[in-house]
């Protein structure tokens, strides 16, 4: 890794030292969690070109699966037959959350990619809504609108020897920062590999991709699985941070937030969801400083989204890097896009 990367890592990791406001730290934590979700959506939407508008479903499934695994649950299939599991350590619960979301991504991918284009968008939205309604109504499992609470925080360690607790904000910030870094690296590796190229190929020209041997369904499903698992991880991180989860986590508005982050940041780029996440994670806070009603905030966000899509349809990162590449210089050789982060 280059010098600049190390510097960036150092600066980010040191944030809890010089950011004293716990509230601001809270904002950073939630923003980072959303950035992970946005990066996962970018894999499906940006690189593979599938406009999936049900992503909050995977986020929420990860959150619920992790929370339920850490609390333990029991459901009665019939009057006599009940299944359940006892409470699991949080790190295992998070893993379960990730896997559960990934499995759903697999199922959804296999089924949903039979339809394409606008129909796929609608199927993805419908899927998320069905999941939400199940979460609201299957009270025995999810507590419905009364929410799952008292979700345990993450602690790692060997009992009696040492214990590392992530209940406090600074520690949790490091946790989510590390998770985000790992996810970023995973996506970068994927994009620069055979699999990533296959995904891009089927985004750009599906018949041509098939003609050179790319199994379209296989790569759509792969993108769906990885994307869902990563979103599930973000959901699990969220659940053990706020420690309360209710069906609102599946609301379409959260999917929309992720979509806004990806598109305005620059879909199909590595840095895009990060930039978009920072902008739209912090923007509501910035607006709050002006004591604006939440509805007005959303109106402004909606307007901003429209403006960005009109003015810079390719997103902030590509527009910025193309401006940076051509400033002062006559456009001789069109260069391949430069990533903001290595």
């Amino acid at each position, binding site marked *: 890794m280059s010098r600049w990367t190390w510097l960036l890592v150092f600066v980010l990791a040191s944030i809890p030292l010089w950011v004293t406001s716990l509230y601001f730290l809270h904002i950073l934590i939630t923003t980072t969690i959303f950035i992970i979700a946005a990066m996962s959506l970018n894999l499906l939407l940006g690189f593979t070109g599938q406009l999936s508008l049900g992503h909050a479903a995977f986020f929420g499934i990860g959150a619920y699966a992790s929370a339920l695994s850490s609390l333990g649950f029991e459901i009665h299939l019939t009057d006599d037959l009940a299944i359940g599991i006892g409470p699991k350590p949080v790190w295992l619960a998070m893993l379960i959350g990730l896997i559960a979301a990934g499995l759903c991504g697999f199922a959804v991918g296999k089924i949903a990619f039979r339809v394409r284009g606008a129909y796929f968008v609608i199927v993805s939205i419908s899927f998320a809504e069905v999941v939400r309604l199940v979460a609201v109504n299957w009270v025995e499992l999810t507590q419905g609108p009364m929410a799952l609470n008292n979700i345990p925080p993450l602690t790692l360690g060997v009992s009696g020897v040492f214990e590392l607790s992530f209940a406090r904000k600074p520690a949790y910030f490091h946790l989510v920062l590390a998770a985000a870094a790992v996810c970023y690296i995973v996506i970068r590796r994927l994009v620069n*590999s055979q699999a990533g190229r296959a995904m891009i190929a089927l985004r750009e020209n599906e018949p041509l991709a098939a*003609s050179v041997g790319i199994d379209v369904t296989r790569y759509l499903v792969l993108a769906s699985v990885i994307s869902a698992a990563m979103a599930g991880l973000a959901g699990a991180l969220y659940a053990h941070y706020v420690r309360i989860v209710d069906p609102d986590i599946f609301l379409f508005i959260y999917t929309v937030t992720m979509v806004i982050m990806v598109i305005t940041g620059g879909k199909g780029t590595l840095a895009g969801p990060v930039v978009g996440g920072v902008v739209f994670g912090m923007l509501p806070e910035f607006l709050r400083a002006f004591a604006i009603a939440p509805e007005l905030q959303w109106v402004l966000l909606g307007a901003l989204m429209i403006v960005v899509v009109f003015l810079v349809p390719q997103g902030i990162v590509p527009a910025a890097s193309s401006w940076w590449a051509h400033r002062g210089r006559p456009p001789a050789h069109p260069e391949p896009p430069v990533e903001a982060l290595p």
Partner: protein
Amino acid sequence: MTATASGMLRVEDLSIRFGGLMAIENMTFDVREGEVLSLIGPNGAGKTSAFNAITGYLRPARGEIFYRGRRLTGLRPNAIAARGVVRTFQKTSLFGDQSVLDNILIGLHLRSRQHPIAIILGLPSVTADERERKAAAWDILRFMALEARAQESGSALPYGEQRLLEVAIALAARPSLLLLDEPVSGMNPAEKVRFMATLARIRSEGITVLLVEHDMRTVMGVSDRIICLNQGRIIADGSPKEIQSHPEVIRAYLGERARRADG
């Protein structure tokens, strides 16, 4: 039913229907190993439909297609490509926003076996495979004389070079049978000459070529054998010289010209 010894590609009794119209009816022909075979015929004769059926983009109403003795009918396009049958498209078809080099890298898909887990873990086998792939891509670029364009965006190339890039992408998939759909349409004479030379080089690599083309000079210049279609049926099959003087062929083309003249 198995293929005969002579046919590398065997099309048997192929029939394709569009709505109520028979685009192709009972078409049977062979492509022999190592030859350059051209399909010609007036517009609407069914040439591209035949391509689409052979390469899995279209489901035939009837008939079978065999390649080296194994059935192709019913397979998906990517499975057919994996067997060694690769096609180009009539309309310019590239991964437009990607660089020329990336276009070729994508075309090399079948040559790698990177497992998703290995990719995510960043194992050295993946890095090694990537290196090999890049090397192979440069080889192909040199073969097609496109190295100078490597970093340019595919859609930024002049038209003639775009069509060459299409062929390069198809070659990257390591075909033993290459299907070219109107490869020189829209090219100027100089580009056509360059293409014919490229085709000769492809042929000397041992690749069999099935060609659909309207440009008669190119067809006569490169083909070992020509099959002429009209209204979904084969009306002639022979060497360029035989086809040139074949009465049915002349009638088919004259007929079309007369139809066009009547408007």
